[in-house]
């Protein structure tokens, strides 16, 4: 008698565990569940527009018939750019919502905090706009970055600065938070290794401060040829205003978070903008036909939300996810999706300034980016300093 119960128990156990292997979670006959997360609230909410852009691309895909017969179901979670909330969001998406893949993260500290558990869970994770190079270094099989890493950005900005004829004296101003530091450090390394230079001035400027006189005067004292600024939009605008007030009229370059139209509006003086260059990760400036499709998608699915470059930044990653899903074919599994991403070569997302290049050992997809500046009152994308002088 007892034997029968034992056998029944064993069969039951097999079914339960067996069931789990058949189909990856978050996948049904006609839907793929994707967990999108980012700083929708809190001080860094401006970066959260990337998540709105990502969701818009998926919504647009659904309207055009989805992919391989499946529609994308987006679950949106907030991290408020706080590691504790970020971990809660990712665990909710993995354990509770049981999503098929994760696509999110715009604050590197949050991504670094939740990365270990995500790697352990094996859930495919495409990083939205968090750019810290250490996110995909060392490489993890299920973690991919789809924007230029801070190392790439630092290198590109230094290279661009050095294209200014006989530029030798480079000054750097940055925030002391993670975001500023992750741009500042690689730039100094590039300056040292490639050009054997050290910055003539290296000053910090705290988030939220409203006066940059000591910083501007220190930089002016070092009479630099070029200033690299790893600052948030508000503080970069204050720096530019104060620089012009004290006669520091030297070209300066802002990093990826800066949207040049906003800065122009915040500075409120076109003359200053002549000397302003910004690292630009997108294929063209907003308003150019080349990226009109994505601008329309963003505004269509996010009515009333003011569009700026941050909003479009994550869309390249969404295009990569869609491409990988397409290549993985109808009977989709996480393994196939990861394999498809692994050999996505020279993939032009249409929206990003550079193609995405992945391989099993290299998951930082985008290396390089353009620079955007005002020539007269027209926005122009350039790669060398001299391009803007024509």
């Amino acid at each position, binding site marked *: 008698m007892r034997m029968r119960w034992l056998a029944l128990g064993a069969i039951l156990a097999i079914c339960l565990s067996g069931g789990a292997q058949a189909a990856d979670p978050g996948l049904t006959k006609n839907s793929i569940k994707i967990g999108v997360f980012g700083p929708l609230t809190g001080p860094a*909410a401006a970066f959260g527009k990337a998540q709105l852009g990502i969701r818009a691309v998926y919504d647009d895909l659904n309207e055009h018939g989805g992919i391989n017969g499946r529609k994308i179901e987006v679950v949106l979670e907030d991290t408020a750019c706080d590691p504790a909330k970020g971990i809660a969001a990712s665990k909710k998406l993995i354990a509770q919502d049981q999503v098929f893949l994760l696509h999110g993260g715009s604050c590197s500290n949050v991504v670094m905090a939740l990365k270990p558990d995500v790697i352990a869970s094996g859930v495919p994770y495409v990083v939205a706009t968090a750019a810290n190079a250490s996110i995909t270094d060392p490489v993890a099989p299920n973690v991919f970055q789809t924007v230029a890493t801070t190392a790439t950005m630092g290198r590109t900005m230094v290279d661009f600065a050095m294209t200014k004829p006989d530029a030798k004296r480079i000054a750097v101003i940055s925030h002391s938070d993670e975001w500023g530091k992750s741009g500042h450090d690689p730039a100094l390394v590039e300056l040292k290794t490639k050009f054997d230079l050290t910055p003539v001035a290296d000053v910090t*400027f705290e988030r939220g401060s*409203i*006066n940059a006189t000591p910083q501007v*005067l*220190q930089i002016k004292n070092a009479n630099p040829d070029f200033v690299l600024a790893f600052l948030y939009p508000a503080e970069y605008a*204050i720096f530019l205003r104060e620089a012009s007030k*004290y006669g520091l009229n030297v070209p300066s370059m802002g990093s990826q978070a800066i949207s040049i139209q906003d800065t122009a509006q915040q500075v*409120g003086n076109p003359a200053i903008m002549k000397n302003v260059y910004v690292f630009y990760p997108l294929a063209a400036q907003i308003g150019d036909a080349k990226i009109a499709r994505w601008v329309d998608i963003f505004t269509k699915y996010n009515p009333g939300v003011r569009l700026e470059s941050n909003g479009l930044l994550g869309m390249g990653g969404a295009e990569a996810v869609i491409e990988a899903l397409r290549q993985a074919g109808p009977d989709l599994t996480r393994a196939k999706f990861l394999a498809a991403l692994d050999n996505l070569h020279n993939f032009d997302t249409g929206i990003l300034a550079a193609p995405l290049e992945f391989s099993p050992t290299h998951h930082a997809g985008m290396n390089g980016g353009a620079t955007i500046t005002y020539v007269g009152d027209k926005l122009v994308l350039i790669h060398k300093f001299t391009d803007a002088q024509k």
Partner: protein
Amino acid sequence: MLAQLVVSGIGQGSIYALVALGMTILFRVTTVVNFAHGELFMFSAFVIYLLLNAFDVPYLLAALAAILVLFVLGSVVERVLMRPIRHAPHMALAMMTVALSYLLRGVVRMGWGGDVRSLPPMFTFDPVMLGTVVLAAQDIVTIGATLLLVAGFFVLLQRSRFGKLAQAATDSPRGAALIGLNVPGFHRTMWGVAAAMAAIAGILVAPVTLLYPDMGAQVLVRAFAAMTLGGFGNLGGAVAGGLLMGVLEQLAGFYVSTAMIDIASYIVIIVVLLSRPAGLFGRVERVRV
């Protein structure tokens, strides 16, 4: 270079002085330290932003309206939040202002989201050159307004009957009530005046800085440093402390390191309060058994 730093420091310090002045006036009359004063300052900037963008009124009108709105807000805060717990221990009063700062930040974040907004510069005439020293229009206005307000408050509190009543209401509320002074009403007015002071600081600073919900905290800590340096509850001390803090930050930032700017106020607070709690001009309170 030194002159430029000092001038810019005074321009910056006068903002701290304005905020510290508002907090000191409130502290002197109601013995409450308003931890939400930074947020009142932030809120007034957003009120101006709303008026300018939604109704397209001239800046001056928007500024005056903001002062009025903040005065009403201050009075409502006193009536609804502070008066019911006026007999509670200091901790409850302090916590109420902390809760108020939390609430204002949440309301603004919900209303205007996380975007950083900016106001057109209030004065567009070029900076004045004093030899090599650049004095921006904004600094002149801020310094001018601060001196004006300080003088005004000195006359109001030291000379006028209103000032005497304020002093009476502080020293012995019960005594003041006995002579027919409506003490709670008086507190409500002072909360209104303090909030209006925060609005004035907000009006002067908004065009210089950029608007986002968390801009209040920075200014609050500097105002504390100013009040501590000048001696808690001492009007002249708050203003002198504010100006000193502004200049100190600039000098520390230039001559020592720009990383020092942020902690100059923390160091001042700790050093002054541990060595001479009464600050430079305050009087030492003697605690009797």
